[in-house]
């Protein structure tokens, strides 16, 4: 059977199982990608609701809605859910859907492993969220769970968080093995490394980062578990350990993790900007090397999260210099994206709007990142709202906008329908405006001296907090439009055709929309 014939029968070889069984037992990369993306969507709403509670409590000074203990549980779970439950599964979902389509592979290399890596996650998040319903507090020490607050002083539910993180780690490790195996082995004939789409490249690098650091996180939580229950003292000075060791281990995972969250978004942006500029990506080779250098540098900067724990001057300088260096490859990426747009034929459909939003706001987040890298200044910024503003600027308009841009970009391919462009634009503009109203004032708050993770604050911080809270509610509501657009596109909409975007050049646009259940059964040939 030729692949052309397959295309005419989109439901050739459908999954023979029905309803729940289809989704539970599926080994199809498209089904699993869809599952990942829906999990991320649900978690986005849960983690977002927690953010709304946090901002509601901070709307005015004084004890208002929730007590300080519950406030800490909300900041902890909001962080954990957004990092592990939203950005990572969404990126993995995109990889599952798009990597095989973009490299001309029939499926992921290890389909059963793929099923398993997804289905571990709902269990992990059930464990994590169940802590809210236990007698006694849920984890309440921030998503970074510094010892000894999480060891000697951690609530009993901490153990559930530890096992949840173990499961998420397993899932990520298996997922990244699968992605690496797929990209190495299943590229179609003619798809040399330097012809790989940027999204695939960034995921390839990300998968190696995951493989390198998720075991470190597993070790970290296991040491916490051992300190809590097995009488060890890794992080307890009274037993010969050191609480700062925890931070070294955690951030050795944590900093590469930051790039795990952002690199696939870089890949998405590197696909979208050329498509809507109708011009090839500028400096493809440099983009690849920049991605790899960012990944390598990420292993040598972890202690910039810990300047205030104090370290020898040589250490402080080393971590400051290497952190500053990260700005160079990141700068190269930003300049290349702008140059890709330059003298193109630009149109501004929703994916492009999100990509431009990404470009502008990520650059702002990058600049505050360089400011934070300066060790002496970091002593003033550390653990304030300036840091909160910084990482929300790189994570919300960075990773999250990257994911949203990708969803708008590929939704026509996935569903076969065009989404409602008007609603998409509304979603973009409202998100853009409200997220700036939410996070921009946080720079001022931090510089003026407001620490992060406080449930109540001095009166001089009242106005900016109120503005930020209003922005947050607006941003939260705007996301309901996103959900609405997605559902609407799934059930109806104009036919998308193989290639809804004039400027698309990658392989997925050669397939029908929606693609048949099995694609590239016969691999395409690149010249």
């Amino acid at each position, binding site marked *: 059977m030729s692949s052309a014939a397959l295309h005419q029968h989109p439901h050739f070889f459908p999954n023979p199982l029905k309803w729940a069984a289809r989704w539970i037992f599926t080994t199809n990369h498209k089904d699993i990608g869809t599952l990942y993306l829906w999990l991320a969507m649900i978690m986005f709403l849960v983690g977002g609701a927690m953010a709304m509670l946090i901002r509601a409590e901070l709307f005015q*000074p004084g*004890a*208002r809605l929730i007590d*300080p*203990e519950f406030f800490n549980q909300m900041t902890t779970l909001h962080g954990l859910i957004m990092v592990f439950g939203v950005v990572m599964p969404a990126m993995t979902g995109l990889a599952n859907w798009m990597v095989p389509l973009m490299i001309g592979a029939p499926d992921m290399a290890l389909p059963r492993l793929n099923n398993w890596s997804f289905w571990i996650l709902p269990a992990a998040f059930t464990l994590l969220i169940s802590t809210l319903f236990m007698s*006694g507090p849920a984890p*309440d*020490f921030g998503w970074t769970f*510094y010892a*000894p*607050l999480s060891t*000697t*002083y951690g609530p*009993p539910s901490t153990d559930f968080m530890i096992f949840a993180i173990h499961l998420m780690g397993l899932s990520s490790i298996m997922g990244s093995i699968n992605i690496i195996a797929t990209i190495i082995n299943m590229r179609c004939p003619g798809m040399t490394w330097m012809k790989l789409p940027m999204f695939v490249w960034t995921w390839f690098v990300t998968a190696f980062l995951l493989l390198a650091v998720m075991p470190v996180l597993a070790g970290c939580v296991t040491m916490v578990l051992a300190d809590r229950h097995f009488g060890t003292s890794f992080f307890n000075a009274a037993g010969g350990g050191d*609480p*700062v060791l925890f931070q070294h281990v955690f951030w050795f995972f944590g900093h590469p993790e930051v790039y795990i969250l952002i690199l696939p978004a870089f890949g998405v942006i590197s696909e979208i900007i050329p498509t809507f500029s*109708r*011009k090839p990506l*500028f400096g493809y080779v440099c983009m690849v090397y920049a991605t790899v250098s960012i990944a390598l540098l990420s292993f040598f900067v972890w202690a910039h999260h810990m300047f205030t*724990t*104090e370290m020898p*001057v040589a250490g*402080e*300088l080393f971590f400051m210099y290497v952190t*500053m260096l990260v*700005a160079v*490859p990141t700068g190269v990426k*930003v*300049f290349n994206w702008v*140059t890709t*747009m*330059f*003298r*193109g*034929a*630009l*149109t*501004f459909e929703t994916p492009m709007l999100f990509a*431009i939003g990404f*470009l502008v706001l990520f*650059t702002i987040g990058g600049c505050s990142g*360089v*400011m934070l890298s300066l*060790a*002496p200044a970091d002593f*003033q910024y*550390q*653990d304030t709202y300036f840091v909160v503003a910084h990482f929300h600027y790189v994570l919300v308009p960075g990773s999250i906008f990257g994911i949203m841009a990708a969803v708008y970009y590929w939704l026509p391919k996935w569903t076969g329908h065009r989404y409602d462009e008007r609603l998409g634009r509304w979603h973009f*503009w409202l998100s853009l405006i409200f997220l700036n109203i939410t996070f921009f*004032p946080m720079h*001022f708050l931090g*510089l*003026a*001296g407001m*620490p992060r993770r*406080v449930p*109540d*604050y001095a*009166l001089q911080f009242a*106005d900016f907090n109120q503005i930020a809270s209003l922005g947050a509610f607006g941003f939260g509501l705007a996301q309901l439009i996103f959900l609405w657009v997605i559902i609407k596109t799934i059930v109806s909409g104009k036919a998308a055709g193989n290639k809804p975007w004039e400027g698309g050049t990658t392989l997925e646009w050669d397939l029908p929309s929606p693609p048949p259940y099995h694609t590239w059964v016969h691999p395409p040939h690149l010249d």
Partner: protein
Amino acid sequence: MKLLKKMALKITVFLSLMLVSWRAVADYQLNMTSGVTPVSHDVYLLHMTAFYISLVICAVVFGVMFYAIIMHRKSRHPVASKFDQHLGLEITWAVIPLLILIIIAIPATMVVYRMNDTRNSELVVKVTGYQWKWRYEYLNQGISFYSNLSTPMNQRANLEPKGEHYLLEVDQPLVIPVGEKVRFLITANDVIHSWWVPAFGVKTDAIPGFIREAWAQVDTVGTYRGQCAELCGAGHGFMPIVVIAVSKADFAKWVANMTRGKVNADTMLPNKTWSKSELLQKGRQTYNQNCAGCHQTEGKGLPPLYPALASSKITLGPAVDEIQLVLAGKSGTAMPGFDDQLSDDDVASVVTYTRNEFGNNTHDIIQPRQVAKIREAAKITHQSEQSSPEVNV
């Protein structure tokens, strides 16, 4: 054209929103303080340098980008150019940022060295973080005290109007002289805290079991306020730092006062018999300052981590047990020992309070001398059990 009009409208709406919010906040602090120490001035300059460089970079990047967005939209520039590489450009925009970074790194390196130079200090203060208060010890003057949040619970619960220094006020501030290099030895008793006074440019993590150093040489007399910067539990937002910098002469007077006051406190009416209402009144204060963070104002606690005191085995059981528990703490739990934090009066009143409030009607009245006896007995057993001198972390 229609699209341009629409965009112009959107931009106007956005800018006017920004302007409105700007006017509303014009009176508030937007930027980092330049502070009152040499280090904080240096840090401020470094911060501003990095900020202005960032502004220039953003202006260039966004300038080119918006130029492309306006001039190279498909309606104006229908055929895209096909160029996709230029080695010279790539090298330029790798090298220029590198040079800019080197230019900022030089002053930053100098400040790093200056911050870490704690030599030649004239006064040493040990700062210890507790859940949730600070303890200050003047090692050579023999002065030591705890510094608790003094904002009344009623202000936090919105029952009274909030004062000017809401959440940034303490019962006993740290006092230091201006013009002298003060060295801080910073540690913690339980979890990690972080001692931060923005005006000094000092933020140092207080790590249990380890001592970190920082220093400040304040150049202006005044009151400086800061907060704990590292999440340390439910009371993290409620352990502020207040430092009063005074002239050297005033500082000497203060030291003399403090050392004299200490002698008085030790000999103050040890055998006085307190009335129940006196004990309850003092007990309420002591409770709200030291206990309510975990056990809550209403004594309901946050079980199972922080047990309730209302009708609990401890508050209804033998008073001796409760006094011992307050003094020694309970190992393996979040309950610290208050032996060196609370005086006999404090313990007597807080125990009386907990045994007669929250529906606990034991009618027990505990006198300070009873506490003194238990404390003395505990000390003797402690010494006989442990021959080596106690290491004070």
